[in-house]
C-alpha cells in the first residue's frame, strides 16, 4: 500500500546553508494493507520527519514515497486532496492540534467544507455520529465544546474520528498517546488495534518500545535518520542484533525485571554524522577494519523478516 524508497531529508543550516544536516538518510520500508508498522526512535531520530513527509507536510530531498502506485511528491491540487482522502495523520500534542479559539468540532466542519460540500445536514450528522461511535465517544459529551473542555484522550479520539470521516486507508499516528495519562492511553491504543482489524493500515510512530510491541507486527528502528534494524516485531524484540537496539532494550524500564547495571553509555549523541555508521561513535563493538568508520552499513538479512544494518553482524 505505502512504499518508501530510499527517502532522505537534508536540511541546509548555518550561514548561507553551508552545512548539511541529514535528518533522514535513505530510509526504505513498506506498509502493507491492514498492517501496523511501528517506527521506533529517540528524539532526533527523524521518525516524525518521515511521518510528515508521508503526509506531504515536509518535502523529501530525494527518494520516492509511493502510495497505491502513485508517487505522492508529484501530487497537486485535486490529486493531493484525493490523497488526503485516503491518508491522514494524528499528532502528539492533542491541544496544539486544535485551533484554541474555535470549538473542537470545527475540524469536522473543515472536512465537510473541503471534501463533502454537498452533503445534506442530516446525512452529515449521522456520519459524524458513526465516526464518533467508532472511536468510542458519546456525541452528546464531545460536540459543541472548546478543546480545553475535553480531555487529551477525547481530543485524540476526536482526531481519529475526523480521519474516519474520510474513509481513510492509511493513518500516520505520530506519538499520539505519549501525552495521555496511563489510564486512558491504553484505550486509544486498543482503538488503533480495532481499526487495524477493520483493514486500516497504520504507521505507529513512537519512542516507547513496549507500545510498539503491544500493537505492531512490523517494526523499524531508527537512529539518527538511518534504519538500524527492521522486520517482524517479535524477531527484533526476541533477538535484537544491532548494538543500538540492544542498548535500547537494556535501558527501557520494565515492570518484569530490573535494570542490569553498568551497560549504560554516557556518550552524548551529536548532530547527525556522515561518512560512517550512524552509531559509530557510541558503538561498543565498532571495528575500523570492517569499515564502521567509513560507511553506513546496508541492511542485510539476519533471519527471515529481520534485517540489520551492522558490519559486525555480517561478520558473524
Amino acid at each position, binding site marked *: 500500500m505505502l512504499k518508501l524508497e530510499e527517502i532522505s531529508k537534508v536540511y541546509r543550516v548555518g550561514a548561507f546553508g553551508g552545512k548539511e544536516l541529514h535528518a533522514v538518510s535513505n530510509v526504505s520500508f513498506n506498509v502493507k494493507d491492514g498492517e501496523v508498522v511501528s517506527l521506533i526512535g529517540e528524539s532526533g531520530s527523524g521518525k516524525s520527519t518521515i511521518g510528515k513527509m508521508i503526509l506531504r507536510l515536509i518535502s523529501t530531498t530525494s527518494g520516492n514515497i509511493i502510495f497505491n502506485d502513485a508517487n505522492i511528491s508529484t501530487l497537486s491540487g485535486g490529486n493531493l486532496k484525493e490523497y488526503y482522502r485516503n491518508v491522514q495523520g494524528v499528532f502528539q500534542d492533542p491541544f496544539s492540534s486544535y485551533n484554541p479559539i474555535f470549538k473542537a468540532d470545527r475540524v469536522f466542519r473543515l472536512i465537510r467544507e473541503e471534501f463533502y460540500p454537498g452533503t445534506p445536514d442530516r446525512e452529515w450528522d449521522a456520519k459524524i455520529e458513526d465516526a464518533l461511535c467508532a472511536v468510542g465517544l458519546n456525541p452528546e459529551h464531545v460536540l459543541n465544546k472548546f478543546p480545553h473542555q475535553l480531555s487529551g484522550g477525547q481530543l485524540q479520539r476526536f482526531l481519529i474520528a475526523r480521519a474516519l470521516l474520510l474513509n481513510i486507508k492509511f493513518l500516520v499516528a505520530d506519538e499520539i498517546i505519549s501525552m495521555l495519562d*496511563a*489510564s486512558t*492511553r491504553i484505550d486509544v491504543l*486498543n482503538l488503533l488495534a480495532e481499526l487495524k482489524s477493520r483493514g486500516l493500515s497504520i504507521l505507529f510512530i513512537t519512542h516507547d*518500545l513496549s507500545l510498539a510491541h*503491544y500493537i505492531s507486527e512490523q517494526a523499524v528502528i531508527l537512529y539518527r535518520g538511518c534504519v538500524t534494524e527492521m522486520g517482524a516485531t517479535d524477531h527484533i524484540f526476541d533477538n535484537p542484533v544491532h548494538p543500538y537496539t540492544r542498548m535500547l532494550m537494556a535501558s*527501557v524500564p*520494565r*515492570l518484569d525485571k530490573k535494570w542490569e547495571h553498568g551497560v*549504560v553509555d554516557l556518550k552524548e549523541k551529536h548532530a547527525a554524522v556522515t561518512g560512517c555508521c550512524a552509531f559509530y561513535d557510541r558503538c561498543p563493538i565498532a571495528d575500523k577494519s570492517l569499515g564502521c568508520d567509513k560507511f553506513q552499513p546496508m541492511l542485510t538479512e539476519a533471519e527471515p523478516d529481520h534485517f540489520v544494518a551492522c558490519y559486525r553482524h555480517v561478520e558473524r
Partner: protein
Amino acid sequence: MSLQVDNLRVYYQTLRGDVKALDGATFTLADGEIMGLAGESGCGKTTLGHSLIRLALPMRFIEGRVTLDGEELPIWDTEKMNDFRFKKISIIPQYAMNAMNPTRKIGRMTAELLGSRKVDFKDILPELKRRLDLVKLSHDVLDMYPIELSGGMKQRMVMVLSTLLDPSLLIADEITSALDVSSQKAVAEMLVEFRNRKCCNSAIVITHDISILYQIADSIMVMYAGQLAEKASTETIIHAPRHPYTKLLISSLPEVGVKYTERRLTGIPGNPPLLLDPPVGCRFRERCPIAFEKCIEIPPFVEIEPGHFIACWKEAGTHAQA
C-alpha cells in the same frame, strides 16, 4: 524518620475559586528511603513536591505540618524557608535544562548560588569535582556556558548542583520524562547512587512513569485527584496492590512482551474529577468497580500491614473502621 507530613492541604487560587489540588496528605519518609510519587496529570503529585520546598502564589497553604529531621518546616512562609531551601531540602526541577542562567558560565553560576547560601565556592570545589566525576561530567563544564551542554548533561549538572550541600531531602520532579531511553536510565541510576553515597538522605521522585519507579524506588505512593490512594514498598505496589485505582492503573500499563492479540489491556473508564469542586467522599468513587455506600465518606489513609497504607473502605476493612 526523615520526613513527616501531617494532613497537608494546599490549594490553588484561581478566579473561579480554589482548586483543591492537595487535600489532606499524611505520610512519612524513612531515612535513606527513595519514595516514588506516582499518579496521572493533575493528581496533585507536583503540588505536593513543590509545596515542600517553595509554596508560592497561586499556591495557598491551608493547613498541615511538615517535619524534617525533627524540625518543623515553615512551608507557609517562603522567606523563612530560605534557611532550609537548598541546604536541608532541595529540588531537581522538571525543566532542569532551562533552569540555568544562559549568560553565566556554570562555575560562576555555582559560586553565586553558593554565595547566596553563605558557602564559599573554594571550600566546596574539591567535593564538587568529586561529584562531577560521579556523574561522569568532565571538570571543564565549570568553564562552559549552559548552551554548550546537551540535555542529558545539563540534567546531570543540575543534579550535582541541587545536592551539593548534602540536603536531607531531595525532590526530583519528572527528571527523566524529557530524556531519551538511554539517558533516562543513566540519570535514574545516578539518583540512586547519590542516595547510596549520602549526597542526600532521602528522596521523593515525582513521575508519571511507574516503570522507572519500579527500577529505582524503595517505596511508591500513588495519588489520585489530590488525595493519597496507597503507599507501600515498590514490590507490593507493582505486584500486589490493594487500592482499586492502583490495581487498575498497574494493569493498564503495557510492558515489553505484551501484545494486544495475546493479552488485551484495558484502561480505567471515565475521567478524574475536576478539583475545583471535587465530589464528596472517596474521589475515585465514580470510576471504582467496587464502590459501595460507605464510599460517600472520605476513607482514611490507614496502615493495613507494616508499611502498607491505603485509603479505601472496602480494602482496608476493619483497619479503617477502627
